[in-house]
């Protein structure tokens, strides 16, 4: 029997029992749509959390922890394969103070390599990068932390610096190992202001300087503090470094991290965090698909029932076909095609409905949730409640059509086992 004839044969039988088939397709549709929508919530939350994690950091960043980092080692790291940039930032391990006229604040100074910073994500909102040892770039919230100490009210209100920053000179002081401010003043000129961080709550008040400032700072510091040597092993050092290595591509983060670990460095990258996150959400999504599958299994009872009824009702017809010479495998295939058709139609409808539900829920749910919370937005988060990736459609379709065919398999087998003689004896 030709395939197109098999299809037309199946269609004829379906037409004869439109209502029963419709109800079965409806049950299959509801089960599959439930699975897709349920799992889509897992995909949606996963994406929301991923976006939230990624929005705070560069995905290619690998944080390297070591006590023995210096310029030489940082240079060595730059030469490694798939390394785009190595940012060796040195922080001062002592108290610091900046002041512009009456305004003072405790800004942290960071010594860094602006060439390497520029390769990654260091951008200025105005001005230029430092070219001399006393030129610095300040963070976007630098001025917010400059407070007029003479004008602090009793109720805690204070005035912050509102003047221009570019070209402004300010006095920078550092403390000694006992926490006292050293009187020696270091005049620094602001030549650039860094770009605002992506998040509103993230405030950048730092002062960024080139490595050429180190000798001057060390000179002042060690004129008041003992250097670390055999006589003073517990003396406090001035600079503590941290290194961030940036891979050229996200795919290479793992390889670069592994190479660093092999060389004895302790490393942390967002890809590791994402990996853990992905494992967690994979388990969650698998759980949701499992729960959704139960709905499909319930729908499969309907398919089993419909197909069993179809076989029972058509016993005489099956007997006639077998008597004429129909291959039992053909009869089995015809019934399997019928149950598969129910599964396919149910799945197609379910996919269409699920996408509709997903779109509507992504539009409506944020409105309801924000209204319920009484806030204008969800804490600045871009929440996606439901996402239906093509993989979910493939998984749900496979389960749905697979379950439909398994449900139809037993009735189809029963059809092949029908005894011709008994079938022909059935009353019309």
């Amino acid at each position, binding site marked *: 029997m030709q395939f197109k*004839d098999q299809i037309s044969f199946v269609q004829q039988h379906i037409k004869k029992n439109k209502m029963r088939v419709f109800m079965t397709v409806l049950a299959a549709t509801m089960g599959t749509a439930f699975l897709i929508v349920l799992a889509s919530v897992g995909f949606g939350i996963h994406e929301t959390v991923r976006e939230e994690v990624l929005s705070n950091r560069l995905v290619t960043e690998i944080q390297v922890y070591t006590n023995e980092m210096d310029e030489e080692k940082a240079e060595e790291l730059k030469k490694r394969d798939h390394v785009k940039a190595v940012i060796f930032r040195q922080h001062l391990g002592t108290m610091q103070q900046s002041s512009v006229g009456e305004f003072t604040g405790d800004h942290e100074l960071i010594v860094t390599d602006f060439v390497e910073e520029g390769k990654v994500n260091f951008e200025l909102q105005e001005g230029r990068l430092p070219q001399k040892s006393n030129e610095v770039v300040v963070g976007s919230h630098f001025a917010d932390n400059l407070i007029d100490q003479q004008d602090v009210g009793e109720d805690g209100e204070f005035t912050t610096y509102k003047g221009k920053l570019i070209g402004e000179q300010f006095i920078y002081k550092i403390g000694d190992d006992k926490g006292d401010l050293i009187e020696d003043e270091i005049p620094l000129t602001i030549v650039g202001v860094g770009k605002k961080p992506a998040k509103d709550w993230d405030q950048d008040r730092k002062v960024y300087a080139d490595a050429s400032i180190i000798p001057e700072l060390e000179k002042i510091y060690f004129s008041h503090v003992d250097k670390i040597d055999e006589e003073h092993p517990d003396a406090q050092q001035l600079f503590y470094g941290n290194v961030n290595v940036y891979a050229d591509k996200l795919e290479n983060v793992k390889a670069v991290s592994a190479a660093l670990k092999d060389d004895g460095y302790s490393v942390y990258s967002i890809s590791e965090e994402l990996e853990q996150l992905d494992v967690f959400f994979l388990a969650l999504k698998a759980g949701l698909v499992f729960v959704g599958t139960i709905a499909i299994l319930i729908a499969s009872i309907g398919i089993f029932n419909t197909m069993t009824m179809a076989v029972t009702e058509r016993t005489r017809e099956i007997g006639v076909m*077998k008597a*004429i*010479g*129909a291959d039992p495998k053909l009869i089995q295939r015809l019934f399997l095609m019928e149950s598969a058709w129910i599964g396919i139609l149910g799945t197609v409808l379910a996919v269409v409905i699920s996408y509709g539900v997903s779109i509507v829920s992504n539009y409506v749910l944020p409105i309801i949730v924000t209204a319920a919370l009484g806030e204008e937005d969800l804490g600045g988060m871009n929440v996606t409640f439901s996402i239906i990736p093509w993989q979910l459609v493939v998984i749900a379709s496979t389960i749905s059509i697979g379950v439909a065919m398994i449900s139809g398999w037993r009735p189809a087998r029963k059809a092949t086992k029908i005894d011709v003689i008994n079938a022909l004896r059935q009353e019309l």
Partner: protein
Amino acid sequence: MISIRNLNHSFKVGKKGKERQVPVLKGLTFDIADGEIVSIVGKSGSGKSTLLHIMAGFLTPESGEIHVQGVQTSSFSEVESAKFRLDHFGFVFQNFQLMPGLTAFENVELPLTLKGISKSERQEKVNDLMQSVGLTDVQDHYPNELSGGQQQRVSIARALVTDPPIIFADEPTGSLDSETEADVLLLIQSLNKTRGITFVIITHDDEVAQTANRVYRMHDGVLTEGGVQHAI
């Protein structure tokens, strides 16, 4: 040619654990020549239908051999048997056994569809056949819209459509009035003459049996009487 040798068959009857074997066919040996009309006549329960079912491959005999056109069919599997039936046999049943959801045309077309023949070829063949059995006017009617005689003609057309060398007819006139019965028997004789098809007619009616070239009489599972040889 159908050649049957020492054919035995029995059925189990009674409750499970207390079954007993009831022999239905007892050592049958006979031949049916090509182009013959053979009738097997007997009372109800004589075993004639069981004989037809075994010859047609619906049942596997307990012992004995059946050869159809030189092929031993008695040891066929279900699938082999189905394939052989489709290629070599046609069937006419007492209650017509037409598919209620198919038109007369589609019912006749069904064996060709099962054989995987193309639609255009099927239509050509079925159109010719419907014309030759006088069913062109009712070819789009469903079985329940046809008279008994018309339904049996459709059934005969379905049996003929694959050009089988042998047609088994199980009480072909059992559901027909005497006038229609005569028509159907004439049609069978005419097809036998014009197409050389072998007909094996199972009947309880002596009158119907006498229209055959050879008559076998079944009694308690034994062919008790040789047939009457008519001129072909």
